[in-house]
């Protein structure tokens, strides 16, 4: 046997697949948005509201990644947008291969914006590139303003952060300024949107950001 020196990251095959997928989406005029958060941060509620607001003038679709069940995909079908449930079979994250299979299965032609609702988890999704054009992280007020200290990688690899459930600020000791300061320390260029999907506060700016990032 001979020795072959490699010196490359274990995830290099995924990184290559992810770059190919990103190019494919660009060519097709699709903006693929990877949404990551811990379980219960309000991904589905934020997306439902966002999809309702955008679906009249944009073609929107949703990939729901979960370990099991299709409860979330059904919610989006009820909203009248294309949706597919991707099961990760126990895996704690989506990778580029799984994302591409879900996209091919669902169909993505003539679609402006596709949300990939990643598995609720703040660790693994940060390490596996899905091939998305935008990586968005969600953190909610009840989770506390110290999340950036506990999960630095997720905060430093995201393009945007949405702070959800700001209508609950009076009930929690969440210091928005402190949270933003901690996030900016990890990632000076990140765009931050405090919102309440329930009251609609702040949703305009977040939706405007998505519109600006369409691949048109």
């Amino acid at each position, binding site marked *: *046997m001979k*020795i*072959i*020196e*490699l010196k490359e990251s274990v*995830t290099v095959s995924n990184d290559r697949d992810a770059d190919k997928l990103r190019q494919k989406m660009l060519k097709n005029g699709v903006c693929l948005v990877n949404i990551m958060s811990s379980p219960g941060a309000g991904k589905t509620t934020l997306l439902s509201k966002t999809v309702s607001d955008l679906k009249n003038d944009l073609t929107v679709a949703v990939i729901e990644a979960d370990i099991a069940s299709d409860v979330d995909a059904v919610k989006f079908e009820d909203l009248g947008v294309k949706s597919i449930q991707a099961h990760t079979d126990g*895996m704690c994250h989506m*990778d580029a291969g799984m994302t591409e299979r879900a996209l091919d299965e669902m169909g993505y032609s003539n679609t402006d914006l596709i949300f990939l609702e990643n598995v609720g988890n703040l660790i693994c999704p940060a*390490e596996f590139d899905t091939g998305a054009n935008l990586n968005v992280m969600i953190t909610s007020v009840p989770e506390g303003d110290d999340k950036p200290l506990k999960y630095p990688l997720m905060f430093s690899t995201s393009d945007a952060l949405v702070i959800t459930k700001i209508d609950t600020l009076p009930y929690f000791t969440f210091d928005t300024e402190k949270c933003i300061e901690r996030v900016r320390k990890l990632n000076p260029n990140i765009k931050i949107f405090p919102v309440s999907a329930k009251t609609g506060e702040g949703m305009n700016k977040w939706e405007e950001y998505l519109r600006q990032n369409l691949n048109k």
Partner: protein
Amino acid sequence: MHEMGIVTHLAKTLDELAAEQKIVKIGKVTLQVGEVSGIMTDYFVDCWDYFKVRHTVLKDSTLELETLPAVTFCDNCKKNYETVKYGRTCPYCGSGETWLITGNECIIKQIEAETEDDRNGEKNVRTDEMR
């Protein structure tokens, strides 16, 4: 907690490499794993042994893991220190403005491989011996 996910990617990367370089069998695979990468080494090896049998080229492979030390840089006093011992707070000046420099990696350092050519070579040797 994401050892299984990494194992599937490692297998895929090696499978692609095998196809590219006409490798028929992979022996020892040496990985460099950062001290704070969150990878549990024993569990990682178990996952590998469970998964490798699905790939002909990998079924006789073994994993060897080398640890890469974690080093943190302090933005305030510009010194480096051991991450595992001191965590996020700089032991020299007490600042929390610190950044991990190394320790989060998982790199394939090298592999032992047998290629189609090697195998054909061996056959030739045997034919010679028979004569």
